[in-house]
Each structure stands twice: as structure tokens, then as C-alpha cells.
């Protein structure tokens, strides 16, 4: 707290020659950066084991992480007001791309999620929305006064749910869930009345069974069935979760040791380097390894909430808290799913699971958090 206090006084530190001074000038928040680096470094170790000691996999992931940290560095330089100014434009652009995906998206594994730009590569427009939706909602509230009123709630719901439904149609349940969370969390911190929250939860409880029958895809429905009774089809749909729990449970307190997890190394654990990578850590690192990971995540989330606490205006506060809490949603949904608390939803373990655009998006989000923190003005009070 002491250094934190000092860091809020750039005038006294601007000529400091130590590393944190340099980081500060680069608009980087050293505690958050340290936690992220430890998390990503440890993640690479787990990935090396999960990928059957495949160094290639680790190198590719490291390159991707490097790209993510580049994005973090760049986005940290952009002042929050610029984000606020561009939020509606980026949101509208992302929405347009999502519509485009519906028509000309590239299909892979039964879902149409990718947009291919000839000569450049392909990307998932849904990833943009993970940042654009909370930014847009935060922008909306920055123009209104808090607490959120019913009219605001309706508009925010529209802003959030339109992209969410577009993403869900691809179908990509995991991402749509995270985008929805990002938008709705802004609503929550913006002071949505508890009565409305409880009403919404009540409505959800009623709607869930209806969703199950009328909205979910058969593959999603099967996942829900499996969640409630994985032993019904132990060799088919239940296989993943049974093997995952077996991996976690067999790890015990201290684990089987790095590179010694039989469940993952002998291929019993499916998707061991992607969505189910936590099971690898739990098997090889035991409860101790898992608690260390949870501690790191808690540090990242705590620092995020700390940054929002100290943010100086509504847009920054709302955006920062949404980013931090969305990160928590990632953690909770993935670990809950892998340990059998939640149905299987395609949400990766943030910063550790192999692959994809999500790592870059996540680190970009932390870039925005750092920008918010390092672009504050000294306040008298």
C-alpha cells in the first residue's frame, strides 16, 4: 500500500531511475504485470507437460503470449478518454463484423466463428466484443448519472444481448456467456438495484428449463445432461468430466509431480492442453499447485478491483471493474467446469490454456486496465 501511495505521486517519482519507475513511464502497473508474468510463465510449464513435452506447442504459445504483452503495452499507452471516445465506433464495427461472420464466416468444428481476411489471416470478431461491449456499456453510463435506472437497464440489455445472441448463433456458448457477463457486470457495478437483480435471477430460474428445451443446441443439451449425470455415458459424453475429476482427485495434496500425471500423459484426459489444462496442473501439482494458481488469479483480480477503486471517472471505473470481474468469470467457469461444479462450457483457463485469440484479448484488456491506472491525474482529495 505504501508503494501504491507513492505511485500516485508521479511528480515525486518521475525522476526515479529504478525499474518500476521505468515501468510507470511505460504506463505499466508493476504488481499486475508481475502477477501476469508469473501466471503466464507457470502456465507454459503446465502446457509443456499437458502437450506431452512438445516444445513446439510451448514456443507457439510463448509467441502468442508475446503478442498479447505487445498488445498490453500498446493499449496501456492509450489514455482512457480515447477509449471512451472510440467505444461506440468500435462497438458498431464489431457488431457489423459479427453479422458478416453469419454470412461469410469460416466454418470449423461445426461452428462458424472465424472471419478470414485474405492475405492477413483469420480472427474471431467475437473476441473484439469481449472488450467492446463493456466499453460501450461503460460509455453509456458515463453519459448518464448513477444509479442505473430501469430505462438504462433496458438499453444496456439491448447493447449487450444483441452481440451475445449473434455469438450464440455461431454457435459459441462460452464466448457469448463471457460477453454477456462483461456487459451485465458493468450494470451491476453501476448500481443496478438489488430488486431488479433478484427479479432477473428469478426469471432466469424459470427460463432455464425453457432455454434447455427450445434454445440450446443438441450438443449443448447433451452437456447439460452429462453435467447432471456423467456416469450415464461414461465412454461418450461423460468421458471428459469423469477423466477430469479422476485426474484432479488422483493428484492429492502434493500431486504426482511435473511430467508424471498419468491421466494426461497417457491420453485419458481429453483436451488436456486447452480447456481441461487445470486438471493437468491439479494432477501433477496437487492441491498445493491449485491453491497457488487460485492465489495468483486472486492477486490479478484483486489488483484489477484495486485499480477500479482508484479510477477517477465513471467510464474508467466501470470498464476496469468489468474487465477484472470478467476475468474472474473466466476462472470460475473454467475451474467449475473442469472440477464438475458446472456443465461443460467451452471456456479456457485464462492465460494458461493453449490457443487462440482469447489470450491476446485478455492481455489487451489488462493493457486497458493499466492505462486506466497510469493515466490518472493527481487529485487533491
Amino acid at each position, binding site marked *: 500500500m505504501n508503494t501504491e501511495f507513492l505511485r500516485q505521486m508521479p511528480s515525486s517519482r518521475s525522476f526515479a531511475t529504478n525499474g518500476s519507475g521505468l515501468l510507470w513511464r511505460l504506463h505499466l502497473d508493476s504488481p499486475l504485470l508481475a502477477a501476469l508474468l508469473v501466471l503466464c510463465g507457470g502456465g507454459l510449464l503446465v502446457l509443456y507437460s499437458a502437450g506431452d513435452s512438445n516444445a513446439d506447442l510451448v514456443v507457439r504459445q510463448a509467441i502468442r503470449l508475446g503478442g498479447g504483452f505487445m498488445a498490453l503495452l500498446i493499449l496501456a499507452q492509450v489514455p482512457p478518454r480515447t477509449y471512451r471516445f472510440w467505444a461506440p465506433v468500435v462497438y458498431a464495427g464489431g457488431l457489423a463484423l459479427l453479422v458478416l461472420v453469419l454470412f461469410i464466416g469460416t466454418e470449423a468444428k461445426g461452428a462458424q466463428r472465424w472471419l478470414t481476411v485474405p492475405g492477413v489471416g483469420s480472427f474471431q470478431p467475437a473476441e473484439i466484443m469481449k472488450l467492446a461491449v463493456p466499453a460501450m456499456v461503460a460509455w453509456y453510463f458515463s453519459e448518464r448519472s448513477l444509479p442505473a435506472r430501469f430505462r438504462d437497464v433496458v438499453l444496456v440489455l439491448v447493447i449487450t444481448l444483441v452481440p451475445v445472441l449473434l455469438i450464440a448463433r455461431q454457435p459459441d456458448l462460452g464466448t457469448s456467456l463471457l460477453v454477456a457477463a462483461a456487459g451485465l457486470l458493468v450494470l451491476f457495478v*453501476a448500481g443496478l438495484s438489488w430488486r431488479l437483480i433478484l427479479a432477473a435471477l428469478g426469471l432466469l430460474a424459470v427460463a432455464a428449463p425453457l432455454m434447455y428445451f427450445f434454445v440450446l443446441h443438441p450438443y449443448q443439451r447433451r452437456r447439460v445432461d452429462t453435467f447432471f449425470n456423467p456416469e450415464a455415458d461414461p*465412454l461418450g459424453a461423460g468421458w471428459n468430466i469423469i477423466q477430469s475429476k479422476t485426474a484432479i482427485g488422483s493428484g*492429492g495434496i502434493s500431486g504426482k509431480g511435473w511430467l508424471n500425471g498419468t491421466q494426461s500423459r497417457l491420453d485419458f484426459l481429453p483436451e488436456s492442453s486447452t480447456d481441461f489444462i487445470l486438471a493437468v496442473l491439479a494432477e501433477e501439482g496437487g492441491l498445493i499447485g491449485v491453491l497457488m494458481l487460485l492465489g495468483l*488469479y486472486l492477486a490479478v483480480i484483486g489488483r484489477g478491483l484495486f485499480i477500479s*477503486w482508484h479510477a477517477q471517472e465513471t467510464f474508467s471505473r466501470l470498464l476496469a471493474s468489468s474487465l477484472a470481474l470478467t476475468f474472474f468469470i473466466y476462472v470460475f467457469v473454467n475451474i467449475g467446469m473442469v472440477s464438475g461444479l458446472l456443465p461443460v462450457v467451452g471456456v479456457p483457463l485464462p492465460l494458461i490454456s493453449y490457443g487462440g485469440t482469447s489470450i491476446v484479448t485478455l492481455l489487451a484488456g489488462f493493457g486497458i486496465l493499466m492505462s486506466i491506472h497510469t493515466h490518472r491525474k493527481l487529485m487533491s482529495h
Partner: protein
Amino acid sequence: MRSPMTFRDHHNEGRIFSTRLLWSAAIVLVLMGVLAGRMFWLQAIQHDRYITLSDKNRVQTQAIAPPRGLIFDRRGELLADNQPDFSLALIVEQVPNIHDTLALVAEKIALEEADIERFWRRVRSPRRPWEPVPLRARLTEEEIARVAVVQHEMPGVRIDANPIRHYPHDELFSHVLGYVNRINAEDLERMTLDEQANYSGTHFYGRLGVERHYERLLHGRVGFRKVETNARGRILQVLEQIPPLPGEDVHLHLDIRVQQAAWDALGERRGAVIAMDPRDGGILAFVSRPGFDPNLFVTGISHRDFSTYRDDLDRPLFNRALQGQYPPGSTLKPITGLAGLDAGVTDWQRTMWDPGYYRLEGQSRVFRDWRRQGHGWVDMHKSIVESCDTYFYDMGFKMGIDRMHDFKVRFALGDRTGIDLPGEARGIMPSRAWKRAVRGEPWFHGDTINASIGQGYMLTSPLQLAVSTAIFARRGEPVVPRVAQLTPPASPIEPALSPESRHWDRMTAAMVDVVHGARGTARAMGQGAKYRIAAKTGTAQVFSLGKDEEYNAEEIAERLRDHALIVGFAPADNPAIVVAVLVENGGSGGSSAGPVARQVMDAWLLNEAGELEIPPAAIPGAIPALMAEHR
């Protein structure tokens, strides 16, 4: 910075935001606690359960099937061995689209509906993922090549080699060896738990013949190995291994030369030949024609092949030698004669006039001799040589059924011989008690008269005829026939006559005259023989056709002819082979069955140069002391 469009209570907004942030932090902490608690539950409290599950995943106990014992004939000729069979299997988890792949495979190899049906059944039943599911066995080399060329286009398709039973002589030994085929649920249900464990790696089970009777011996003891595998079932390391105990090889009394001679001599005619070494009870030849190809049954006979066998009017799957039931006819006259002599109702001097028929006093019913004009003055010797029925009608009537029955059962008639093959028929040796129990009728004199020439109710299998002849050749010493060269069990039958009885020599002499005498009924078989043969011919009347046999005038005429029979042994003074031959619808025993018996005897008694050279008995100790002494 902020556009002051509306009035804003910054203090209030900050308060709301801070409160919510604290709420968020609290919820995050609680939910993180939930995750940590869940992990604690799985990793600390439920740890033992999951470590067991994880080991069960990883460590597999696999049964190793013991290699099945081989079967040899007495010359060391291989009759049943194990050969690699190439089968095509699918690792379903690697196959992108099973239907497409099946269609592709069907273009390369012949697939029957039953193969595909069986495949789907296996796919749908509970199984380990990544385990290959067999689709078709017995790929030809051409099929293997055709699949190999396109295998890279069909992921998950593999060709495996497994040992399967092979019978190099195809039909020749079919009815005596039997065959193995896939073990099934019923086989396993019949076993004790220990036996089931012993079969845990085995895919085949003996069905008939030697394969069935000596199943335990041939099978051996299962081995086990504990292996660490990955989820694809690939073995990464062997943790522990108990090797299997291979099945024992079984050496048979059968002699391929004698078997082949019997097979060839019978030719395309329906019938059976049993050749036996009377010295030790060893079966030298066991032929029932037509036979079948046991190799077709091993990996599951196709529906088409099976219908061919099943619908064949000649019934190739029917074991005539073991299960066929035929009236023995005149072949039993020497034994019936001994019974009469033993009972004292006749002797070698007694003569009688045969007018061609026999009539009981005070009754009008006439029992005809096979020769209408009669044999004139006949005695026992002539009645054997010329097979006079009238003499035996008279003698049988005087002896009565009780004494006849009690004497003949000592020649292994009317009960199982105890051969080491499954499914033996009992035959019928009628008695008053039998007729009352089975027919519910009293015994009539006419029944006795029919029985005295081996007709009426009496039924025997060709095997029983051979065994009764062997007991005759052993001078009443009972013997249990054996296919395999293992210690024979003691016969439960008591000897009929003392081996010293002078009747043996005279009866044997009469049987020698059947073959070598000028008027013998089996003169045809004696010509050019380098040893003396004792034999007796017979014909068995065919009474009726089976119900479901179709009407075909020419066919029926052929199938209504009498069955031809002959029993005999050689050399007459030192028996080393006993032969019983049945030729269905063969007509006369002497002319159609006799030459078959002769060729079988030649195959055993003559060496390759065509000279008499009597092979030693397989089990010398089994020769009865009294029989050896008497020579």
C-alpha cells in the same frame, strides 16, 4: 473531460460504485473459496477413490490365451494346428465416418450382411474406447493387398494376425476331430468361475470329436500380464507377467494311411468305416462319409455354406460311425452262435434241414431265409459261412431272448462303448424289460426269432459293431475304444466266455471260411490276401424313408436298397486290426462292404513294399495277457 450534460451527484455515484465494488470483491472471495473447497473435496477427501480410478485406467490386466495343443496321428502327421489368420478391424474412434468407411471396405473385400450386423452389435455393446472392433476374418492374400493399397485413405482400418485352428486334411478327419469355433456366452455359463477365468483370453472352444472331448487338455492354462496402457490401449510397459501354460499336444491312435484307405475305399458312397487295433482298443480309422470341411466352421460358417450342408440329402454333418443306428443283421451271427453254444441249445455237430423258411410249431407265420430255396443240411459252421438264417431262427428260439440278451451285452451291444468322443449313440439290445418299458408290450416269440439274426428291434452303430468284433478277437476280453493315445479306462463289462473256450477257434475258423472258403459270402474280399481274414457279412433292411425326404422315384429306389455291412479282423490267428464297414444302400455286404474292409486291412498290415508287416500296438501293456498267451 466529462461532458456535464446532466447534473451528477459525484459523491453519491462514487458511493454506489464503491459499495458495489466491495460486494463484487466479497462475491469473488466467496466463489474462489467455493473453488478451493471443491478442489479440497476432490483432492484431499476423495483422493483415495480417484487414485484407484486413475490406476484402473492406467493399469490393465490382460489375459494371454494359451496356444492350443496340436493333434497328431500315430505317425506324427499333423491333423490340427494353429495358423495366423488375417482379419480386418476398425478402431472406431479413429474412423471419421463409419458408414463411409464400411462402404469403402466393402469395395475391397467381400462383406456379408452377417459380418456387418455382428460388427454393429460389437460397436454398440459396452467396450473400451480405441479397442479394434473386428469386421471380417480370413482375409485372402489378395484382399489384404487390396486393402493395404488404400489403407492410408481409411484411417482407423487395420489388419491383424491372430492364430486360429487349421485342419490341413480338410474333410478327411472331420467326423473324428470335430472342430473349434468361437466361444459363446452359453459355453461360459456352463463353466465354473475358475474355468471362466481360464478362458478369459480364449476365443475358441472345441465343438465335436477330439476337439471337444480333450478340450481341457488341448486348451492349457491362461496367462496374465499387468500392463500400463494409454487411453488408446497402446501398451507402454509390462508391469508383471505370468506366462500361459500351452495346451498339450494330443497324439491319436489314428493312422493317416489307414484313414485315407478307408476314405478312398468308401468313395462317394454314404457310409462309415471303423478300424481298430484289438490289442489296445486304439481307433486306427474313423470315417463317416460324406464329411465336411471343419475349417469352414472355425471363424463362423457362412449362412450359404451351412445351408448347403444342412439341406444336403446325404447329411454330411451326420456322424454315421458314431451316431448312425442300423440293424446289425447277420454280422452278429458269430456272437449269437457263441451264445447258443454257451447256452447248450446247440453244438458244432448238430445239423438240421433248411427248407428256406422256419415256422414255429402250431403257428402259421413263416420266417424266411434270405435264400428262398434254402441251404439244405446245415450245421453251425456252414450257417456262419453261408449265413443261414433258418439255423439261427431255430437256435435263437430254443435259447430264448433272456439268455441271448445277457450274453450279447458283454460284447458292448446296447450301450455306449465309452469311446473318447462326445455324442455316442447307445444302440438297442432288446430284452423283455426293454420292450415293456419302451413299447409297453410283452415279448413275443417272433421278436426272439428276429433278434437271432440281428433284425427286429436291434440297432447298433458302426462303432459298436467294431467294438463287439474287437471283443470277439480278444476272445471275450472287453475293451474300451480309444481315439487318443492315453491310458485307456478299464471296461465295466465282464468277459462273456473264458478265453480258453474251444468255441473261439472253431467260430474264427468259420469266419475265415466266410472269406477264404469256396462258398463264403465274402469271397470277394479274400482274393490275393497275404494273410488270413476272419469276417462276417450282413445286410440291414431299410424299412422306411424319413418323413421330410422328397419323393424322387430313382432316388428312392436307390435309397430303399439294403445297407451293406461287414465286420472282420486280421490276421485271423493273431488279430492286429478289426474293421467294421457300413455302406448305406450298398446291397450285399460281401460284394460292396467287403472290399472296403480289405483295403483298410491292407493299409495297416502291409508295408510299403506290399509285404505283411504287423505294426506294433501303440500301447503294448494293453494287450490282455490271456489273449497273448493263447496264441
